[in-house]
């Protein structure tokens, strides 16, 4: 390991870090003061389409402050390179690492190991209601196509900081929509199991957002999309979507609002308003 005093040679100009900034692995990693590293047992679902999947057992040492994604990544890096799993951002913005943990839909990157007891195995399986590609990997195209059909615009008005004066030159405070298209809601929804054509909580919540804040969306097209036997009326309020959503979308409430909206529209038209 290089000394903290060694100046790195010929680093690209854009970085130009001082020597102290590119240092050694920090002192906490030295042998004398190893942090407590429990051994976790993970049961990961393994297999490929066409063969029966099975749970395989792994053990991995990590601090309790680490996350489930770290455990799975460490298992892949050090024990089994054939393990298939999705991940990208590790901070719950990409929505890629959705799985079922002990049966429940979670994002691996924000599921701390601390939640679990090292004595009991953690079961990790892929999401439900998506085509299974092997191990923990599913094909999320069915969800992305639904979201594309809705056309949810990624950027929305930022209501969280709306009470503050805007910086000069910024017309409106904006932020990304809450929905990270992780698919946890689609996996948790019992209706998705039985109906291939159901739009699903994420897409319906997206329609509600596009009607609430149009951003170039076509309200007539969106209402038609929602007002369908396989649209908003297919929901039976099982509420599991809102229970598992890691990103404050609350699809159940959005679907409720969407229904009220459609009912109001129908009544309005029925009473002679413009279509």
């Amino acid at each position, binding site marked *: 390991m290089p000394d903290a005093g060694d100046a790195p040679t010929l680093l690209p100009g854009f970085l130009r870090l001082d020597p102290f900034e590119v240092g050694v692995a920090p002192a906490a990693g030295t042998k004398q003061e190893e942090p407590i590293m429990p051994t976790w047992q993970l049961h990961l679902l393994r297999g490929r389409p066409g063969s029966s*999947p099975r749970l395989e057992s792994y053990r991995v040492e990590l601090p309790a402050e680490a996350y489930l994604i770290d455990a799975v990544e460490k298992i892949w890096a050090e024990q089994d390179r054939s393990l298939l799993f999705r991940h990208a951002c590790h901070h719950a913005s990409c929505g890629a690492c959705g799985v079922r943990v002990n049966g429940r839909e979670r994002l691996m990157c924000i599921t701390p190991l601390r939640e679990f007891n090292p004595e009991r195995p953690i079961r990790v399986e892929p999401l*439900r209601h998506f085509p299974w590609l092997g191990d923990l990997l599913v094909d999320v195209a069915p969800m992305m196509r639904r979201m594309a059909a809705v056309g949810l615009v990624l950027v929305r008005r930022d209501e969280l900081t709306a009470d503050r004066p805007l910086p000069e030159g910024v017309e409106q405070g904006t932020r990304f929509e809450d929905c990270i298209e992780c698919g946890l809601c689609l996996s948790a929804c019992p209706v998705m*199991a039985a109906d291939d054509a159901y739009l699903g909580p994420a897409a319906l919540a997206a329609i509600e957002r596009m009607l609430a804040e149009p951003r170039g969306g076509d309200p007539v097209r969106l209402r038609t999309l929602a007002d369908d036997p396989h649209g908003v009326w297919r929901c039976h309020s099982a509420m*599991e979507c809102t229970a598992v959503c890691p990103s404050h979308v609350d699809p159940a409430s959005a679907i409720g*609002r969407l229904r009220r909206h459609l009912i109001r529209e129908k009544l309005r038209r029925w009473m002679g308003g413009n279509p």
Partner: protein
Amino acid sequence: MTGEPRWKRASGWADLRGRREGGLAFLLMRLTGIGLVAYLFLHLYTLRLLAQGPEAWDAFIAVAKSPPFLALDGILILGLLYHALNGVRVTLLGLGIGVPHQARLFWGVLALTLLLTGAAVYAIFSITG
């Protein structure tokens, strides 16, 4: 369909693994719904006895008042009450009302169902002796 094994099949709605109050409420709603439809057909079928004269009907009523039959009535009331009360819950939730309280509402529905069923069963057995 080797690409789509266990994660997407019609009975998937009955899979309670990983599901909580809302999922359980949904499952019970479907089961009681199916039960009530079955009961409806059974009831209509039984009513044909009315067209077969007083002896046929009285004979049926004698059976209908027997304790085992009344117990089945108790189960019917259980299912009916659950379906009706949860139906109110689902109607509200489906319109976006009370969503943050959905789990609590479910326990409330269960409690009320059991309470009212208990009262009904007590009443039935009191009346019929």
